[in-house]
């Protein structure tokens, strides 16, 4: 990150990967997977707009630093093994 105006390039070029930006704070509901019911069809992974689901051994692994809690995974899951839990609980 540049500290002074002289360090800013004349043409702004974005170079830092946005993984450093934490968007998990936007979340009101947290998706929680019940792995015993999961059939590992990866529908949740396929439809995640925040690229916050990775393929785990037992099922989806959530990246809670970036998941915004939209609930698409819970809605699309064919066996309904993903639960949206309020963040304040």
């Amino acid at each position: 990150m540049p500290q002074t105006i002289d360090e800013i390039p004349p043409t702004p070029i974005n170079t830092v990967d946005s993984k450093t930006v934490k968007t998990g704070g936007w979340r009101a509901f947290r998706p929680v997977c019940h792995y015993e019911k999961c059939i590992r069809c990866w529908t949740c992974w396929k439809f995640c707009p925040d690229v916050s689901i990775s393929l785990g051994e037992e099922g989806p692994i959530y990246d809670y630093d970036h998941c915004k809690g939209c609930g698409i995974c819970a809605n699309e899951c064919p066996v309904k093994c993903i639960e949206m839990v309020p963040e304040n609980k």
Partner: protein
Amino acid sequence: MAKLTIPEDELMSPGHMGCLGCGATLAMRYVLKAAGRRTILSIPACCWAVMPGVWPNTCLQVPELYTPFETTGASISGIRAALDATGQNDVNVIGFAGDGGTADIGIQALSGTADRNDDVLYIMYDNEAYMNTGIQRSGSTPIGAWTTTTPVGTTGSWEKSPKKNMVAIMAAHRIPYVATASVAYPEDLIRKVQKALTIKGTKFMHIFAPCPTGWKMDPGLSIKIAKEALSCRAFNLFEIEGGSYKINMKPKKTSLKEYLFKQGRFKHMPEDLINELETDLDRAYDELLRLESLSLERAKVPDA
């Protein structure tokens, strides 16, 4: 472990600025999965102009060029010309613009690109209004929709003109490939992008991308609503290759009213307007079916 139906390689990073349940984000994710690393994007002012993040961050792992609103078509032509001049012919050039930047503001430059038949792919992700600037109506906003510039209130001045048929406009340019896709069917979307990139000339794709913020609905319903849009004929999946039509999906018809009333932007719609819209959409679908059968017939008869 079930087999993945779409490529695993991820060229879009998390941490982007898209809203919850954003359809446009999914569109970009699938397009990049299909196009691969050797891709240059050109993005005008649209949701995707802000979504990569605040400088110096970017969520895209491919080079991208920000262009003014009306110049996506011209900029991709320019990128292709520069690549040709430097002898790099294995790079995909993709213009990625919203519906406002395509159907209204960018149509002139896009028409020029199609006219020159430059070897580029132009993608319009359609969220049916200028969502980035705060939900103003665009040429692609359907009849009856509420937006901030077509407010309902007591006057009922909701959107009065029909959705602009961009696919027909582009097909009329006689470019080699025109297709529609939906974020609800990523396999179909990825297949179409990959197919388009193998064809030489200007290609156009219309991707249906729900916007929970602007459509006033639950973000978790993005994919469900995109599927429903298809089954109630509000959007059709088809491709036009070399002038012949092919409908990719013919789902059983569901109620248009149900689709509309799931979205807050259509809550006010009177019964007669819904019926009128349903007749319109059915007619458009019948026309597509006719064009498809005509194309099939033509394919059977060899040119005399």
